[in-house]
């Protein structure tokens, strides 16, 4: 049954994609797409809840096969839950001009490509879907931006990095297929060089696609360039499909990996989590900031995955299953709140004409619906109770805490450091989203455009309200999801989980109880305070007149942390003072926090490759004599080699 529903949903998506190409049927087409995505969500979660399999089983043969099982179902459900509101949102967000219609067609193709990877049951379909999933967003960026210079450059970096790193995916999948282990089945011996090679290739290849540091450089460039609904799909789902690949290969198909490999995964996760949120904090463009937060959240997911690998290596199977569940729960949660935040950013961009944090402000009052939904998303991504981000971060923290409990000295220490890194990440995320909420939603409008901002159309509001409701519901009953998620672990020994998160070895997290306590206390305190208040006065500025020039900026708010971490971040600042006749005329200030991995790792690498290419170009002199010379030299070398006995 879920398979039939899934088929119907995908068919509706395809039809919607075709219909959206024509001006007259644009709206109908986009609605059909959204309906199809809703069917995909229902089918996916249905298959997940039943843990049922349908269609073909995994095969290492190169014959197109499609199928469905619990893990695919979970990711398809995540895809549908994000795609439905994103597509509903896109109906009013995309204009029905030629460019808008092309984007509408491409977004349907994008969802289909993502579903193809998730349903693929053979190496060929998997890799084809994988490449399509990379190429379609590149097309969307080029179309939406009319292929301007910035878009071309971004797409070049995006394709270059994802293909260089993505070679790892090809290597891993082809090696698996060669060993007859695409789909598991014990073709790869535990502890063999082949197992480690496949694991390392998968980690690099899929880590690149997931935006894991240090392979992440394309992500903060590409995600903000796309239109808001496609950004939501990219951050919400596309990078999660890479997580799906990692779970399949590392957790399911390769058997038990050595503990040190789990520690490497933990280290990459911790680096991405802290690095992502740290650079997000010093970012002043809303969409780029959200894209950097995707790196952080992928880091948190990978921390859960690393804990799973270490605990599995230490035969702590119950907690390994919970660590996997933590990673997957955060996958779903991040998809929901990140889509919400990207759609919110799209709304604000339309309403106030800017995405720079310092050019918005006061939007909660002007866009009460979209603003309140965005606030819920911000609280969720900051990992605050009682919302969904808190539940999955709590579970990830618990999983990491059990690494020192079951591990040896080295992996136990790594687990403790990862634990501290995740705690610091959570605090940094709170810092960052206080800043975002403050600059975007609160206070006074900072520009005339923000002052005149008006609420979004009903369909857009409904899309963000749906996602905000999902944040609340997933925060109240995470146990219901986790209960089924632990069953996805391909080993026995998964513990029983209650509707709140009542787990053995923890103090339990009665999510609903905490939510009720918070709500009741807040309501009681608000009621007790009463409505009596003095007439409003301007804020206290030591008697100075309160004027916009006194308003705090994004850079100012984060300055203490920038100063504290100066040795690590190496920020740049420049102050230019212009004087005329001894009188200061103008002081200009420029400060930025450069991305160290870009500057120290990629820039030298790019410079070296360019230099090498320039050197190689000298070989192509264009003179016939030189080419004849090369041929003679080649023949001589071959003859010499044959003579020595190296060849022949």
């Amino acid at each position: 049954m879920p398979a039939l529903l899934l088929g119907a949903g995908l068919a509706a998506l395809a039809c919607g994609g075709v219909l959206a190409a024509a001006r007259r049927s644009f709206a109908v087409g986009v609605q059909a797409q959204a309906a199809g995505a809703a069917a995909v969500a229902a089918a996916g979660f249905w298959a997940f809840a039943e843990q049922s399999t349908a269609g073909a089983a995994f095969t290492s043969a190169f014959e197109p096969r499609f199928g469905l099982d619990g893990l695919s179902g979970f990711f398809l459900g995540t895809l549908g839950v994000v795609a439905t509101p994103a597509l509903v949102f896109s109906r009013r967000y995309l204009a029905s001009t030629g460019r808008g219609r092309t984007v509408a067609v491409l977004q349907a193709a994008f969802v289909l490509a993502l579903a193809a990877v998730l349903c693929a049951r053979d190496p060929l379909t998997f890799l084809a879907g994988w490449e399509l999933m990379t190429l379609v967003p590149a097309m969307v960026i080029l179309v939406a931006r009319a292929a301007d210079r910035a878009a071309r450059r971004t797409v070049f970096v995006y394709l270059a990095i994802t293909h260089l790193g993505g070679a790892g995916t090809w290597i891993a999948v082809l090696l698996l297929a060669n060993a007859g282990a695409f789909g598991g089945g014990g073709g790869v011996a535990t502890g063999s060089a082949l197992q480690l090679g496949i694991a390392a290739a998968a980690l690099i290849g899929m880590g690149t696609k997931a935006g894991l540091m240090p392979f992440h450089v394309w992500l903060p460039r590409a995600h903000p360039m796309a239109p808001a609904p496609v950004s939501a799909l990219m951050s919400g789902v596309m990078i999660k499909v890479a997580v799906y690949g990692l779970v399949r290969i590392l957790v399911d198909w390769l058997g038990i990996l050595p503990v040190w490999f789990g520690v490497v995964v933990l280290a990459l996760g911790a680096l991405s989590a802290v690095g992502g949120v740290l650079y997000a904090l010093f970012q002043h463009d809303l969409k780029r900031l959200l894209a950097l937060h995707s790196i952080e959240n992928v880091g948190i997911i990978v921390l859960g995955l690393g804990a799973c690998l270490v605990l599995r290596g230490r035969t702590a199977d119950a907690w390994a299953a919970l660590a996997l569940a933590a990673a997957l729960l955060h996958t779903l949660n991040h998809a929901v709140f990140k889509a919400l935040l990207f759609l919110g950013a799209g709304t604000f961009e339309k309403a106030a004409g800017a995405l720079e944090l310092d050019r918005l402000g006061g939007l909660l009052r002007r866009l009460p619906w979209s603003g309140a939904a965005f606030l819920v998303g911000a609280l969720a991504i900051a990992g605050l109770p009682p919302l969904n981000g808190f539940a999955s971060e709590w579970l990830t923290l618990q999983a990491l805490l059990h690494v020192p409990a079951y591990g040896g000295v080295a992996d136990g220490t790594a687990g403790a450091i990862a634990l501290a890194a995740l705690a610091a990440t959570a605090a940094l995320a709170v810092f960052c989203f206080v800043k975002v909420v403050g600059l975007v939603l609160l206070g006074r409008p900072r520009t005339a455009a923000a002052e005149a901002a008006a609420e979004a159309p009903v369909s857009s509001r409904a899309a963000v309200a749906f996602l905000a409701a999902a944040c609340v519901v997933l925060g109240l009953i995470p146990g219901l999801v986790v209960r089924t998620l632990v069953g996805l672990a391909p080993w026995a020994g998964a513990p029983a989980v209650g509707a709140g998160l009542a787990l053995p070895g923890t103090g339990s997290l009665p999510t609903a109880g905490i939510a009720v306590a918070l709500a009741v206390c807040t309501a009681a305190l608000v009621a007790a305070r009463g409505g009596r208040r003095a007439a409003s006065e301007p804020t206290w500025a030591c008697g100075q007149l309160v004027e916009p020039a006194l308003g705090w900026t994004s850079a100012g708010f984060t300055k203490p942390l920038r100063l504290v971490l100066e040795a690590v971040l190496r920020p740049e600042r420049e102050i230019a003072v212009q004087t005329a006749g001894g009188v200061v005329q103008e002081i200009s200030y420029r400060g930025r926090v450069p991305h160290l991995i870009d500057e120290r790792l990629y820039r030298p690498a790019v410079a070296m490759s360019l230099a090498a290419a320039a050197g190689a170009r000298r070989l192509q002199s264009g003179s016939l004599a030189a080419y004849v010379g090369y041929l003679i030299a080649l023949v001589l070398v071959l003859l010499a080699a044959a003579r020595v006995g190296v060849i022949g």
Partner: protein
Amino acid sequence: MNAAAAAVQLLGGLVLAPLLPGLVQHWKARLQGRRGPAPLQPFRELRRLWGKSTVEVEGAGVVYRAAPAVAAAALATAVLLVPVCAGAPRLGAGHDVLALAGLLALARFAVAASSWDTGNGFSLMGASRDLTISVFVEAGLVLAITVPALVAGSTDLAAMIGATAGTHVWSSPALALAGAGFAAVVVAETGRQPVDNPDTHLELTMIHEGPLLEYAGRDLAYLQWAAAVRHWLVLVLAAQLFLPHPVSAWWQLATLPLVLAGLCAVLALLETLVVKTRILLVPRLVAVAAGLALLGVVSWVAGGAL
């Protein structure tokens, strides 16, 4: 037993908590040769504030109005969550120590967001400093509580209090190192010297007091009460996890008030002896404490189970 533990937890956390900062202020004044306010002074202040009207700031909205209630509600929920002795009953919020960190973060978010709503520069200055320090404090807190959690094999606070009771856990240096790490968390969360100066009236040096500047009346009463409850939470954790405590739950209940008073005296002594650290050096202090706690974890893992 259960009823007594719940009574101590609720009465102490919700009602008597303001006594703790009151005691610190009282003893600090004595140590400095002043008569100073009576220990009940925080209650008098709350009563005075309760009778005053709140103020409205031009341009501020619902977040400014809701923040004090949300912060106080988060701390009240945290009181439900932190048991006072081993085997204390669950009061609907579980006993998980990591959930406590989440609730403290919620209160911090609410207060910091309110400063953006008013746009007050001094409030924002305090909020941004508080959030900067919180990054290190949160890492230190989680590392410090990892040791008792490893001892107990659980993050259930009631179980952790039971497992760290008695003398046998002190044969390993792990808990002592974690306790040293937690000391910095106590000082930072309570906003006391050398991290912050609760007596300051100079806006430029404020950390925790900064975001409170725009509030008056019952709103301010909520926030001051929340600060007192924060004293209660971290001092109870310090007393029942990181200091030697008796095995019997009744004795744990009986000694708790004495140990809390002792800890207040230590805070008062610390405030008298130590000057406030430069704000930019505070993270270094807390990071060193977190490093000590990490050493505690490593020594526990290396030593194996006792």
